[in-house]
């Protein structure tokens, strides 16, 4: 039997679309095999990698993954920790042990460390099969967020907002002078001068809206130049902090 692909790389497919036929192809993420045909299991962009067919999702909720850095909100104080909502179908638990290097005495009032409605940057350290999530605050850059503003973006567009080696976000940071933290869950924290914060929010919304188009960096730098009236240069060889 001959192997044949019915779609091109980067085509948009919807559930039930026949992507390829033949046992030479392997179904990857977001696809399934029925007899010898491979079908799409969700809305996504086709990515043909050798003989493996994968789908890059275009929509959907954030699913917690170990080692992801996310921004979350404290929604409850528990017996020995905090419950965190991070815009996913499931909530996470931050245990006392993972919250701070300080010594927390027995029976202490936990709201002294994190109160309800506080926002934190944390790292996912464990996800169980029943989607019980543990997060940690132990690590560089993991902290409570004070001031600034939040904007929610589609979690599937986060890689575009960060850009190659962080180029896109560093450009927005440089142009607006804002401090920006992006959580893998699509929550973005922006802190700076109020006017500049607004520009940064608009720039991020622009990236989100046009994430699938090419030449995005140029358009964003042009947008930032117009808004800030300063020359914006694309950030090269940005090293991760």
């Amino acid at each position, binding site marked *: 039997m001959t192997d044949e692909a019915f779609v091109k790389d980067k085509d*948009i497919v*919807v*559930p*039930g*679309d*026949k992507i390829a036929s033949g046992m030479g192809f392997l179904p990857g993420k*977001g696809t*399934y095999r*029925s007899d010898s045909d491979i*079908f799409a*299991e*969700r*809305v996504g962009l086709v990515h043909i990698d050798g003989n493996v067919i994968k789908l890059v*999702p*275009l*929509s*959907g*909720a954030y*699913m917690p993954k170990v080692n992801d850095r996310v921004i979350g909100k404290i929604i409850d104080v528990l017996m020995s920790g905090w419950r965190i909502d991070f815009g996913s*179908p*499931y*909530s996470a638990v931050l245990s006392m042990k993972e919250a701070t290097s300080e010594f927390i005495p027995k029976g202490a009032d936990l709201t002294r460390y994190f109160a309800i409605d506080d926002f934190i940057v944390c790292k996912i350290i464990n996800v169980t*099969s*029943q*989607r019980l999530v543990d997060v940690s605050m132990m690590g560089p850059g993991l902290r409570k967020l004070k001031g600034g503003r939040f904007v929610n973006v589609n979690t*599937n567009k986060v890689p575009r907002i960060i850009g190659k080696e962080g180029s896109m976000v560093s450009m927005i940071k440089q142009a607006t002078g804002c401090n920006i933290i992006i959580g893998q869950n699509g929550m973005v924290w922006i802190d700076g001068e109020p006017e500049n914060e607004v520009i940064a929010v608009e720039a991020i919304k622009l990236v989100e809206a046009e994430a*699938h188009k090419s030449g995005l960096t140029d358009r964003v730098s042009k947008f930032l130049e117009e808004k800030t009236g300063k020359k914006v240069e694309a950030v090269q060889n940005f090293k991760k902090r």
Partner: protein
Amino acid sequence: MAIKRIDGRKANEMRPITAKVGVIPRADGSAMFKIGNTQAIAAVYGPRDLHPKFLQNPDKGILRCNYSMMPFSGHGDRVRPGGNRRSKEISMLISKALLPVLNLEDFPNAVVDVFIDLPETDAGTRCAGICAASMALADAGLLMKDLVSAMSMGFLDNEILVDINSNEDCDLGATDIPLAYIPSMDKISLLQLDGGVSKENLMKILEIGKQKCLEIDKIQRKALREKFKE
């Protein structure tokens, strides 16, 4: 013998269809499906936390559908808002029509809520609801094997009718046969029959219904692609 239908359609002609995805910005997924004067708007929220807790299923997520006709939607009296016996039954069978394609194993203890509202109704509402809901679920990025399309078939005066309207259904008393179809599996996930029809005719109706569902399937796919192309 060609039957003359009240709106001038041929016996095997559907009413004009419009489908649009992403009509409700704050929902996780949404879609509108309009067939003639019947319009369904579906909004998907979730997967999200499920309460009350006793409804949770630790093996996989559950699907909750909510069908509701808007007060001003009907042809005659005002429809009382909120649920009634009929809407509860239709909600249940819409979820049963959609469940065979959905894969909710990644979402234990969670729920996917689908709210189907009908601003305009002229028969065939459950079918329009299923069409809208399946597009909305795909828009929400859920894993599903295929889209579900549905069509209400009719049988009147020994003639098979496609997509009957309220006039044919309620006033002329046509046999009403709604069916939902999953193309890639070649399976029917909803089949009801209100009235009388012979076995031979029913088999014919199923064949025609499947063909019409395939036409709707194409429209649904096109609408979904359009949203993501932009």
